[in-house]
């Protein structure tokens, strides 16, 4: 039980020559895994991004980059982007932490419901949450205007923060929940025995051990919110951020080079936050798990639990309200305008036009999910345990699929994969996407799903692994297991909760990805999110909400199945694994 830590080598951020315990053995299976992971990332994200970012170096692109720093309009856009990322990152992380803390450490009733509702926003189809928020809290919102008689202006930073925090906090929640339940309660008990009260214990024992969780959650939410496009389009108002500026350049000004240049600028804040969090975590990392925890944590049962409970009820109340709105929208003509009950929306959606897209999307997402989940865990394992130099790079590469807005990824994919790669009459890569490719371009869609879904699992995996004492790996190694066997039989079971987070997120995200898909869909591959967009365009909100409701049902069912599959079968662990579904 290493509470006070010697500065343990953190994934080679600074290679710890001093620490003799952390011996990173290099063996052949590790080399093969490393090469394979890097090759996959190179194909899935580096190659398409290089193809599009080269355009940013063109004269038109460089002019945009130069203007970025001189034009007040552009400076404002960059500032807005950073503000949005920071606000959403901070609030979303705190909300996720609150929900996880209440779930794991506080003695209150109704935790199962809290848990389910905290997971619900994992499924946020584009447009659904933002539209529900407008219906509820807009100027003519059912609550703000209908109940309170106010005329609020939700468009802009307020609305964006509300929508994004609600959509993104579950990943922080799952992350913290895994971390908190694997913390050994003996530490708290020790602190209590030494006379510390609950608050003091929390501050000096629990919090420091969660630093990797805070850092990875903030990073993930920051990156995700600045690269998100759907929400700024619906509820962003005049609050223009880089992601929407990129969209303007590409779809409004027919100017892909400028779009590429803006996305280059967008990578800067993402990279900065990434570096800061790595530096910060590397200095504060506290290893706390040396195996499975023994004993039950003492639950918080003082009066302090009630304000925490109230706050968490507020959060899930909002979530419930929004999803009830979405579902209600599916059963009415136009929610908020004509609330007459109808089943027509489902009849329409299930009568051909929707069936195929539901089937195609679900199959493609199911293929992408295990791939993304496994790659995420492998990256986490390589970054934390195996790589000396370059760990930071690998970590960042894995994040790229999320750090770059979907529009840019989509065009990169169209450039890179919609035609075969032929050089000197030799084909190195057949066309993987677009109408001319095999399987109707489905391969490129799965690739996009994978690359966009890796980061949540990867970050949860990293946070979880950093908590675990490497001596467990070493014990396995000294008993003769090679590193891949160790990963499979020792590491993976210990980070099962993070793995589950990765899988759930991968599936939910695949099912709800829209902007990159636009550039690689074909007549043969019908994608649900695109159908939703079409319905909104055509003014049939009921149908759009019906699609979202079906999507919600599919994702929740798959989440339930995944939880059962990945559950700790030996039943020994009180390390409850994302269970309870």
């Amino acid at each position, binding site marked *: 039980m290493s509470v006070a830590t010697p500065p343990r080598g953190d994934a080679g951020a600074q290679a710890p020559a001093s620490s003799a315990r952390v011996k990173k053995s290099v063996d052949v299976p590790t080399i093969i895994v490393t090469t394979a992971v890097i090759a996959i990332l190179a194909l899935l994200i580096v190659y398409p991004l290089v193809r599009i970012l080269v355009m940013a170096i063109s004269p038109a692109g460089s002019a945009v980059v130069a203007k970025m720093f001189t034009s007040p309009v552009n400076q404002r856009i960059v500032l807005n982007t950073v503000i949005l990322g920071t606000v959403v990152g901070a609030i979303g992380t705190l909300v996720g932490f609150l929900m996880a803390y209440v779930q794991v450490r506080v003695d209150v009733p109704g935790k199962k419901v809290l848990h389910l509702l905290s997971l619900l926003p994992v499924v946020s189809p584009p447009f659904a949450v933002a539209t529900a928020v407008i219906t509820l809290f807009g100027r003519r919102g059912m609550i703000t205007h209908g109940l309170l008689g106010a005329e609020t202006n939700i468009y802009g930073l307020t609305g964006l923060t509300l929508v994004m925090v609600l959509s993104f906090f579950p990943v922080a929640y799952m992350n913290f929940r895994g971390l908190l339940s694997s913390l050994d309660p003996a530490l708290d008990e020790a602190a209590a025995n030494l006379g510390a009260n609950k608050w003091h214990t929390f501050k000096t024992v629990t919090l420091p051990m969660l630093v990797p969780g805070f850092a990875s959650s903030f990073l993930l939410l920051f990156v995700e919110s600045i690269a998100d496009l759907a929400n700024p389009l619906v509820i962003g108002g005049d609050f223009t951020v880089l992601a929407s500026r990129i969209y303007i350049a590409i*779809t409004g000004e027919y100017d892909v080079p400028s779009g590429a240049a803006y996305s280059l600028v967008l990578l800067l804040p993402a990279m900065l936050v990434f570096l800061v969090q790595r530096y910060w975590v590397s200095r504060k990392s506290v290893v706390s798990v040396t195996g499975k925890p023994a004993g039950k944590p003492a639950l918080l049962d003082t009066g302090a639990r009630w304000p925490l409970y109230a706050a968490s009820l507020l959060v899930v109340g909002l979530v419930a309200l929004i999803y009830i709105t979405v579902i209600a929208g599916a059963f009415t003509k*136009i929610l908020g*305008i004509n609330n007459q009950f109808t089943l027509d929306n489902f009849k329409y959606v299930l009568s051909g036009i929707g069936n195929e897209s539901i089937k195609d999307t679900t199959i493609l997402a199911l293929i992408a999910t295990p791939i993304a989940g496994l790659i995420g865990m492998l990256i986490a394992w390589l970054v934390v345990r195996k790589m000396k130099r370059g760990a930071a790079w690998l970590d960042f590469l894995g994040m790229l699929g999320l750090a770059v807005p979907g529009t840019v990824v989509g*065009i990169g994919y169209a450039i890179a994969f919609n035609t075969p790669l*032929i050089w000197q009459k*030799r084909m190195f890569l057949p066309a993987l996407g677009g109408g001319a490719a095999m399987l109707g371009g489905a391969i490129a869609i799965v690739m996009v799903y994978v690359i966009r879904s890796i980061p949540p699992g990867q970050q949860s995996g990293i946070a979880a692994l950093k908590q675990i004492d490497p001596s467990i790996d070493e014990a396995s190694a000294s008993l003769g297991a090679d590193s891949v066997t160790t990963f499979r039989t020792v590491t993976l079971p210990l980070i099962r909760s993070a793995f589950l987070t990765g899988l759930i997120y991968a599936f939910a995200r695949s099912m709800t990805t829209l902007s990159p898909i636009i*550039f690689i869909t074909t*007549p043969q591959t019908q994608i649900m999110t695109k159908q939703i967009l079409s319905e909104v365009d055509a003014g049939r909100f*009921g149908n759009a909400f019906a699609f979202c409701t079906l999507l919600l049902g599919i994702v929740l069912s798959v989440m339930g199945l995944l939880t059962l599959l990945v559950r700790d079968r030996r039943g020994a662990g009180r390390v409850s694994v994302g269970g309870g579904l």
Partner: protein
Amino acid sequence: MSRLKVAAALAAFALMATGCAVEDAPPASSAAPASGAKLSGSLTVVCGAIEEVCAAWTKGFEAKTGVKTSFVRLSSGETVARLAAAKAAPEFDAWHGGPADGYGAAAKQDLIEKYVSPNAAKIPDKYKDKDGFWTGVYVGALGFCSNQKILKEKGVDVPDSWDDLLDPKLKGQVATAHPSTSGTAFTLLWTQVVLRGGENQAIDWMKKLHVNVLQYSKSGTAPGQTAGRGEVAVGMVFSHDCVLYKERGMTDLVVSFPKEGTGYEVGGVGLIKGAKNAANAKAYIDYVLTAEAQEIGPTVGSYQVLTNPDAKVDSRMVKLSDVNLVNYDFEKSAAAKKDLTARFDAEVAAQPKS
């Protein structure tokens, strides 16, 4: 042993990296004559109109010719970006629907090919490209899409003049899209240039309007929906969208037009450069210009004015004779777009609203 494994792995990689030999690229399909020969094979259309009308158009062509026709629905910007990305081997054969300025941008980037259909002779000159890159299939007039309930609350009449929108009672009650992202909103901006006799005057008028604008949305159709929800009193959209939303259940909406004159869009059809099924694409273009094909639109919720004078007029369409259309120069407006929208960004959108 481990060295052997490494060597094997490296060898495998080396093999992968050498690639497979390919035949010389097959010769680009020779442009077959547009008419005469019996059609066969398939056709892929990139379609810029709403989903249902795309489906109905392609189905109509398939029924008529037996050519297996499929489509992907994309906005103009997305179409241009996607065509540019795979220029060497285009996935699409024809482009149908979506504003003419997108076709202009595609022609400039060498992505579409000239094709003047024999059926284009019927279409009035102002609805087709003089160089033959695109031909107009429908026309939409910019109008006011107002929510009567909100107007009544605010004590304002249904607007019938541009300056009606400047009424202080409508503060924060006007929705329009951003001219950079939306062809609709750029049409609004250019209409002011035409009406007020210059870019400076147009920017000045937009500055006055700015005080009343709730938000500049990204999508051109969103203002109609915003008005339909009662979030604002007036949205500025092409009138056929407003008619559609009203029909779909936003019953408080009402369409009106400014008496000083308004702008319009022309939706086009064109041939993709290097199309694999060029003969089929040409036949498709011929088909969609016929009265028969154009009449499909209003049956599936598309109430734009049709360009073929023989096509039946639906009662839900605007009568162009009732609306005062400005003299809209598409070439000139396209050339001015980049600088004008940059000015809009700096001088209008960035200003505080009080």
